């Protein structure tokens, strides 16, 4: 590591740090420093960090140390990402398959849309909506269930008829 003219140079071994990790760490520092990458030797990278503001020697060393810490952080993130790749893909696949098999009310199932120029292939039952229509009695029971206390009966049905009867009797 060298520092000269508001710059500090770090040599990194590509066997220890991946290029993705170096990019990630460099990206974090773009707002604080000018970062330049060069090949130093075979599987070695020369990273030049130049402070955007004037920095002291101590400041440059802090910049370098923070860069190295960020590099470790990105290396670990990469490692975790690699080890979790399979489970992540599995979760996404499950979520997508669940979303595609779900039938949304009021929307035609996938593959039965009749857009312009689209022909229904043989063997596919054309969409009429009938298959998904419920019988009125079924629907009512599903929505309200059993109503032993008569809570679901509208106010007009329950009281207005009685009131009108009372009025007629009064007359």
């Amino acid at each position, binding site marked *: 590591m060298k520092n000269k003219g508001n710059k500090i140079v770090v040599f990194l071994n590509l066997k220890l740090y991946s*290029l*993705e990790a170096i*990019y*990630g760490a*460099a*990206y974090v520092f*773009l707002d604080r420093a*000018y*970062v*330049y*990458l*060069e*090949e130093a030797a075979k599987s070695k*990278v020369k990273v030049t960090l*130049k402070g955007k503001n004037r920095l002291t020697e101590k400041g440059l060393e802090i910049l370098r140390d923070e860069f190295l810490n960020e590099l470790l952080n990105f290396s670990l993130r990469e490692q975790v990402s690699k080890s979790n790749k399979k489970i992540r893909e599995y979760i996404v696949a499950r979520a997508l398959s669940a979303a595609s098999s779900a039938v949304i009310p009021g929307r035609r199932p996938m593959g039965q849309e009749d857009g312009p120029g689209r022909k229904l292939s043989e063997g596919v039952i054309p969409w009429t909506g009938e298959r998904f229509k419920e019988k009125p009695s079924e629907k009512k029971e599903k929505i309200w269930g059993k109503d032993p206390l008569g809570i679901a009966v509208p106010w007009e049905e329950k009281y207005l008829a009685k009131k009108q009867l009372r009025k007629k009797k009064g007359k």
Partner: protein
Amino acid sequence: MIIGFDKKFYALKSIKNAAKAYEELADFKVKTDKNKITVEANNIDKDIENVFKDEFCNYVLSETKRIKSICP
């Protein structure tokens, strides 16, 4: 001003994107060799001449990172 980029670390597309983004500030010529991509910048805007190279390099690096994260 001539700026050299190592092909191992910088993508050609990112350099072209950067040159396009900076086209109002300088005139660019991009050349590719076996290992290096060389950018020749002429007629650089006087106001930013002292930081031009560093800012351009940073822009290229950020573009490279963006491109590599989309299609590694």
